[in-house]
């Protein structure tokens, strides 16, 4: 148990260091300080060093948790998502090492922070490993896949930079709308994390019992104030809140969480857009993104894909096939998680091939980087929570 406690502490330290690094990157890029003579280069360097120390601390978390639980800590959603965040930081550090670009830090680090904070929303209990997961190939497959995804996520950050730089904020366009939607989704994730912490802290949830559509008794444990309950549900504990009854085939627990995330996201968005920034979120970020030329942003995207995709294919498909062969006696079974890993690969393969087609580079490619990251997150969150398959444990 000692190990686990220390690992949690190290994770917290890493998180704080990443947060400070993000702030310093912001200063390095914008020079926003009262004294205008900010040494941007120095700030950028310090931010990078802090990110490296943070990464070392998180590596410490990983090793100590491994020692504590007795298996590679990539076996449930909490562990995997945390590790994915860590690999995003590693991907950033590698690409930063090549390009020394502070703007990239300004965009990549917050996404990694968001991912790690999101991970902490899942149960961090030390759970026993089922036999199928007890394999060396599991460790190799999952860690390599996460590393690949982490590096690919950097192409999302630089793709965003490209789009923010390139899209005109003065006139209406598809790009402008979708950029704002992307920002809104990121804000909703933040909102989800904030309201989860708030509601868990004050205990605003409750437990209901109901008869599911197979006729069995089932309970839902809400952590957020109850808005929706299944038909004929009985409140066992907690506050009833709105408790709107919905047909049984809808998972009201997930709908409840989703709605609260959107509500909180909306509140945050309205605050930012109309009170604090008084303009589009994308518009406020544009001056920062303009500090990188389109060509460089495009090159960083391409490079992250070029580095990340082989790693992902190796870890997420080839090692995955080897493991599946040993554990489930078939290397490929069209399980949703497998299919979405294939889709991830195909999207980036599409990305690589569209670059040799004239006129399909630039904006289209940058949007594909955003889409690729969306698919990675979809596979991580949605496929696990909504589409149940063999991977439903992680």
């Amino acid at each position: 148990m000692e190990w686990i406690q220390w690992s949690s502490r190290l994770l917290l330290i890493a998180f704080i260091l990443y947060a400070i690094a993000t702030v310093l990157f912001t200063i390095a890029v914008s020079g926003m300080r009262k004294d205008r003579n900010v040494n941007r280069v120095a700030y950028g360097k310090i931010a990078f060093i802090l990110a490296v120390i943070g990464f070392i601390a998180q590596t410490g978390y990983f090793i100590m948790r491994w020692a504590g639980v007795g298996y590679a800590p990539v076996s449930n959603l909490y562990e995997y998502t945390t590790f994915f965040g860590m690999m995003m930081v590693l991907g950033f550090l590698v690409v930063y090492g090549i390009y020394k670009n502070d703007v990239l830090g300004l965009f990549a680090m917050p996404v990694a922070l968001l991912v790690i904070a999101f991970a902490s929303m899942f149960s961090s209990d030390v759970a026993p490993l089922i036999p199928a997961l007890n394999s060396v190939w599991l460790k190799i497959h999952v860690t390599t896949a996460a590393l690949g995804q982490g590096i690919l996520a950097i192409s999302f950050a630089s793709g965003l930079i490209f789009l923010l730089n390139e899209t005109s904020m003065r006139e209406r366009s598809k790009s402008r709308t979708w950029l704002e939607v992307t920002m809104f989704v990121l804000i909703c994730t933040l909102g989800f994390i904030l309201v989860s912490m708030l509601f868990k802290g004050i205990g605003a949830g409750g437990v209901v019992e109901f008869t599911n559509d197979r006729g069995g008794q089932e309970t839902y444990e809400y952590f957020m104030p109850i808005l929706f309950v299944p038909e004929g549900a009985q409140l066992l504990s907690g506050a009833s809140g709105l408790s709107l009854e919905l047909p049984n085939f809808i998972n009201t627990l997930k709908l409840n969480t989703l709605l609260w995330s959107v509500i909180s996201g909306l509140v945050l968005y309205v605050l930012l857009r109309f009170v604090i920034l008084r303009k589009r979120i994308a518009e406020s970020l544009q001056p920062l993104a303009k500090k990188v030329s389109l060509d460089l942003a495009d090159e960083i995207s391409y490079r992250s894909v070029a580095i990340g995709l082989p790693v992902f294919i190796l870890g997420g498909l080839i090692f995955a096939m080897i493991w599946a062969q040993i554990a489930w006696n078939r290397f490929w079974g069209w399980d949703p998680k497998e299919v979405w890993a294939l889709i991830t690969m195909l999207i980036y393969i599409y990305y690589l091939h569209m670059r040799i087609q004239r006129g399909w580079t630039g904006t289209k490619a940058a949007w594909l980087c955003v889409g690729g990251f969306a698919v990675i997150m979809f596979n991580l969150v949605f496929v696990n929570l909504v589409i149940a398959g063999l991977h439903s444990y992680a």
Partner: protein
Amino acid sequence: MLDMKYDGADLRSKRRPKSWIDRVWSFFASVKVGLWLIGLIIVGSAVGTIFPQEMYIPQQLPASQYYTQEYGTAGTIYYSLGFHNLYTSWWYISLIVMLTLSLIVASIDRLVPLYKALKYQPVRRTDRFMRGQRLIGEGNGSEAQIDMMEQSLKAKRYRVKRDGDALLAEKHRFGRWGPYVNHVGLVIFFIGAMLRVFPSFHVDTLEWVREGDTVALEATGDEYYIRNDQFILEMYDPENNEEDAKFAEAIEKAGAVPKNYETELTLFKKTGTNEDGSPRLEEVETGSTKVNHPFKFDKYEVYQEQYSSRPEFLSMSFSVGDKETGDIYGPFTVDMNDPETTYDLGEVAVSLRDLYPDFEVRNGEPDTKSPRALNPAFFFTVDTPEGASESNLIGIRMNVADENNRYAIQFAGTEMASTSGLRVKSDSTYPILIVGGTIFMIGIVMGMYWPHRRVWIRRHGETDVLVAGFTNKNPSSLRREVSPLLEKAGLPIWEDQAMFEKQTDANSTNERGES
């Protein structure tokens, strides 16, 4: 800027097509068509994950009913469109076949001209060619400076060729073959995957074997037999196992978690047939198969895939007690699969009138739910020495008998057996798949991590020099590598002819280490 994809070479498919063969060829050689195919495969694959595929639905219910019952109208539509078997549908396979064709055709179409263009490339290039490169510089320079540049490029492991005052430095050309190598690997992988469809390359059967039973393995053509010696199901045990103590909290929340599934087995080979028609078996070896550790023999593998969640009763023993004297008769054993109908115990005789392997009461009558001995009940009559016949209905935690009976039947023991679901398979396509996968990966690494870089330097007019650079990826890295060398040699520094914008503001690149 010049299109340098195939080094400015003329693509065969881009020439005016003449015959219909050429037309079809150009269609599949087109990148756009390839992209469309990838896009369609992405969409198709995604659709297949909306509801589970047929192979993942419970077997008891036919698919035609399952989807409607489980997912309503959407399920009915899903099923009627054939999406429940999407990945083996003719249209999905056709998309994959077309993609394979596109892969092969496009590769041949590009590889040949690219290979020729790179093999026979001149050192001295035209003005137009050099100015068409992404990195281009022009300014004063002498032949001595070019010589100096030759040395420093060689130090950076460039292969340098000279043609008088013209220079061509090149590195990592083999990176250009990466895409073609990985396409070859992919085609080999597809061939392997294709062959798996044929039973001669890939057999795969599930054998349910009860503990103690010996079954012929269909996948081996009944050449081998396996006996299930014991099925082991081990659970995490936080109370008694110190190692598992840390999981106590999680197990309390989520319920018991299995730690190990394992079947201990004995392998037999059939050597002939006995006179009664039964196979003559010779023991080959004993072993075990557990999840993640298949048992291997000959060219076959045995995987622990399933087990029946409830063990079956093989036999049950009873004894008969005389309530008056306290004497016990028996015990006697009833074999579930082949029960005797009378058991002579000396003083008394017991007749088995009926046996319900999976007892339930239906329409007020004793009945059975299934033929499997999961919850057996027995209808006995005891023939007393006095000539009376007393009936007893005995099941698990159930004993229906007349109070006035003199004899009482009691349980005296049971023998139970678990059933293990073993997947037996052989697959002779593994080597092909492994070779294909490896070549694919090698190709990808070649193409992605070794950017092809070329530098041309040439005198232009009396005093001027043209410097041009090409790379198939990451121009800024080429700049970073070669610009300092140009600076050192005093040659003109090249500029990036940006693809997306002219860099009006030099400060706009936040690229440190180079300015």
